[in-house]
């Protein structure tokens, strides 16, 4: 039975495809985007996490750990010896306050289906379904492929939110089964791609072109671009719009505003050097309107160029 590491199953998602959806967040991502909004999804293993604001410093977890992986550290808080921790969850179960948690769970396709099909009623009335997100869900393409085939048999619409920074075979594996691809393009500037995301952008770009070709005219592809304060400007937005139009003029580019709530996730994970920790708001409505105008203008020009 295929399984995967999942860090969240979020019901009543309204922004990850059509209708009311359940979004499944898979752990593990080949990219390291500086602004990453789901830091808990970066790494593909399961780790023990401590929420120190909930911890009563009672030491019960240390006493109960069967592997000697926990010890009392500074300020009485438990410390984890990562090499010794087998993420068995005994301490999590013991902690009365819920201060310890595993940041992911290993789920079989079967178990995942039982969970997501609970909201079938809502999928049916709204034309919604299940979206796989992450992390990079297509890094675990085998699992996603099996899950979406099963969901198709249940008549549930499926979508995947991906950067496409995976081998083409992974994409090919799911291509026939997924109802909607929500592709996140990271930057229009290939030279900066590695600086911003930690990986070379050529693979994702090539995959995008092939995918757009394969899905041309089907309406099964939506391109999204997340705007990041201090990084994204109108010029780059225009470039991105031109690039997308050059691949397929019929494709729309959807701009996503930066979500400042991610900062609190980093704090919870104990990451102190998040570059956008002080960024308390995304772009204003007026700024978003300017960005959208830049997209419209670039597309109009591209359309003209095509005509000539």
């Amino acid at each position, binding site marked *: 039975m295929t399984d995967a590491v999942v860090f969240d199953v*979020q019901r*009543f998602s309204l922004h990850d495809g059509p209708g009311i959806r359940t979004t499944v967040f898979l752990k593990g991502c080949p990219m390291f985007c500086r602004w990453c909004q789901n830091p808990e999804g970066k790494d593909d293993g399961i780790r023990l996490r401590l929420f120190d604001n909930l911890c009563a410093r009672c030491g019960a977890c240390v006493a109960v750990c069967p592997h000697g992986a926990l010890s009392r550290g500074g300020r009485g808080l438990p410390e984890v010896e990562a090499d010794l921790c087998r993420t068995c969850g005994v301490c999590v179960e013991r902690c009365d306050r819920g201060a310890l948690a595993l940041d992911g769970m290993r789920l079989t396709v079967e178990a995942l289906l039982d969970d997501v099909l*609970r909201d079938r009623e809502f999928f*049916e009335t709204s034309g919604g379904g299940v979206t796989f997100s992450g992390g990079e869900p297509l890094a675990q393409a085998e699992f996603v492929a099996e899950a979406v085939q099963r969901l198709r048999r249940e008549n549930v619409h499926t979508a995947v939110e991906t950067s496409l920074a995976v081998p083409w075979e992974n994409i090919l594996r799911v291509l026939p089964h997924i109802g909607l691809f929500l592709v996140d393009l990271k930057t229009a500037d290939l030279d900066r791609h590695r600086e911003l995301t930690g990986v070379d952008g050529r693979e994702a770009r090539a995959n995008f072109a092939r995918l757009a070709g394969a899905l041309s005219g089907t309406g099964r592809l939506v391109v999204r671009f997340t705007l990041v304060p201090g990084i994204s400007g109108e010029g780059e937005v225009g470039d991105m719009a031109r690039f997308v139009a050059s691949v397929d003029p019929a494709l729309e580019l959807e701009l996503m505003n930066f979500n400042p709530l991610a900062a609190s996730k980093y704090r919870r994970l104990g990451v102190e050097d998040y570059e956008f920790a002080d960024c308390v708001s995304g772009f204003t409505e007026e700024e978003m309107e300017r960005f959208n105008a830049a997209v419209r203008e670039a597309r109009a020009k591209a359309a003209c160029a095509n005509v000539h």
Partner: protein
Amino acid sequence: MTEECLIDDIARLTMRPRIGRLRDAMVEEPRYMSLEQALIVTEVYKRNESDPVPVKRAKALAAALRRLEIAIHPEELLVGNRTAGVRGGVVFPEAGISWIDREIETLPTRPQDAFSVKPGDVGLFRREILPYWKGKSLEDVIRREAGGTVDAIARVVKVNQKDHAQGHICPDAAKWIRLGPAGLAREARAAKAATRDPAKAQFYDCAVMVLEAASDFMRRYADLALSMAAERPDCRESLQKAAANCRALAERGAETFHEALQAMWFLFVILHMESNASSFSPGRADQYLYPHFARDIASGRLTVDDALELCEAAWVKFNQIVYMRNAHSASFFAGFPIGFNIAVGGQTRDGLDATNELSYLFLKCQEHLALPQPNLSARLHAGSPERFVLECARVIGKGGGMPQVFNDESIIPALKRQGVEDGDARDYAVVGCVELTTQGNNLGWSDAAMFNLVKALELALNDGVCLLDGERIGPATGSLGAFERYEDVEAAFTAQIDYFFDRMIEACVKVEEIHQRLLPSAFLSTVVDDCLRDGVDVTAGGAKYNLSGIQVIQAANIADCLAALRKLVFEKKTIDRRELLEALRRDFAGSEGLRQRLLNKAPKYGNDVEWVDLIANKWVTYFSDKLERLVNYRGGRYHSGLYTVSAHVPMGANVGATPDGRKTREPLADGGMSAVYGRDLKGPTALLRSVSRVDSARGSNGTLLNMKFLPRVFATEEGIRKFAALLRSFVKLRINHVQFNVVDREELLAAQEHPDRYRGLTIRVAGYTAYFTELAHDLQNEIIARTSHGEL
């Protein structure tokens, strides 16, 4: 013009300035306590001491109709009120006198629903009113004859209807509009001529007496409007029109839409004068006003713009009558929930879709005015038009808390289960907040009592002894320390419920009997079938249906408490039962770890965990089964409701620490079907699935589910469509009721900080909408604390 075109037109309508002026004038006017009617009634009673009670009551109402000072705002299109000022707190000594004596000095300063008192009124009350009624009012007689029982069970059961006449009725407004007081009086005279029963003859005499006075009341308004028209040339036309309407309605049924609305409003004014009770509800006004509307539109006599203005004029009027409760009751029912409930959409008596242009027009009134009254309810069913569902979603998104949503697919079968005939069940309406009723033929007595199951569970765990003060109030059924199995807890819980249940029924029977003796209601009886046909007063069982509703409080807490006990104490045994009992007795002092375990290590209702949700269902069903075996004093059935309105705060204040980790005196879950706030963590779909596991048929008296959404869900057309789909799912899940607050937490905090800037902010408290800034501070906090849904 086709119906679709007309609905397109309605979507574009704007509010006329006149309506804004009428609304502002009303909101700005201060609220006063009013003794005027009490003085008239007292004088009539004194003068007619030897008359039977029904005759005295009828004479008193007739005198009030002929003598009360009346007033008209010069710009009004619809006229009438029971006081010359608006939102007066009418003293009604027939029903409640002692509480006013106790509280009259604090009325202007009490935290909830304050009223100003005019200089001299305190003395006048104590001199002219109190001495006569002391010991005679409903409140005093109930205290004397049933006070022992009521007090003995008070911590577990709140017996209601002890100091006011019976409301929560949906009168036969259609018949009233068709016949008017003159037509009904003819019917009563004919019936009298045909009877030889002196009791019935007396009933008909009383009916004629009040109906004739009702016609005179209308004529007085006609005269006043006409005299004002002479002085106010700027308003001459509308005042002359009002005068003509009133004059006509005194003699015959309504012919035009304008007349029909005026007739409807007079009906509710007079019902309030007779009974001063909460929740006389117009019900399905979009249905019974439709023939007049359609006829006037077709003939060109009326435009939709004019129709909207008239409806909005009625909307303003619905806010001009409030009901003054005692301080205790005001904390349970905060913010003047007078309960003018109007239900739009739904099915016809034959099961077809009933949505019409007026359904949309009423939604538009709500969107424009966002006033607390009327309490607008939308009935949805599987066949509701998509456009109507979307329009409901859009108006809900505006944030006024309305319309609340009712589900035909579960409610109609639930009512049929109570013996209601098919057509009557499909024609159901809503009274007050969320109480379900048939229209025009039911004395539903929907707020007979509230039974606090959580308190009964407290007693079950502590051998019948109250955790708050150590007093024994229930039978000795053992204590948690001695219970070896989960089943032992259930047995003790059952025994405590049974003990208080029997005493509650005893008290309810007594209360109904005293109502019948002291407050027969001739006028109300003329508009509730089959009283007039049979010559039997409505309080004596003259209605076609005679239900009594009792509320089961509070399923969510019971599920959470028993789930924690079952899982942690009896299955996993990670908590010692003696230690837990001790911790409960100490309100968890020194046992915070234990409390956290109860909170975090046992699943909670509202998260789509089936076995937990089914605990809620099990105890609701147990209680409801017991009720349904009984017959009430009027010969009808008891049934159960699952709502608290705002009573979860005071009822929680009466319950000690509980095994779900709740500390002593903290509020219970709000609503009735809602999860304990902050404990439903899986979003709205999971909550709805949990709620759907509590059998909706056991909520035939009404259920209440609160959900709070952030405005951003409604920011786009797509968001509105998704929300509408959520409503469709709610219908499929067969949940009776849901209502929505759409507001930002920041906005609520700001309103708390700067009430003057947020006077217009309305918010769902429970089954009704109130001005947020008029709510007591702790209730405001409680609303802010409720979970809100919507992604960030």
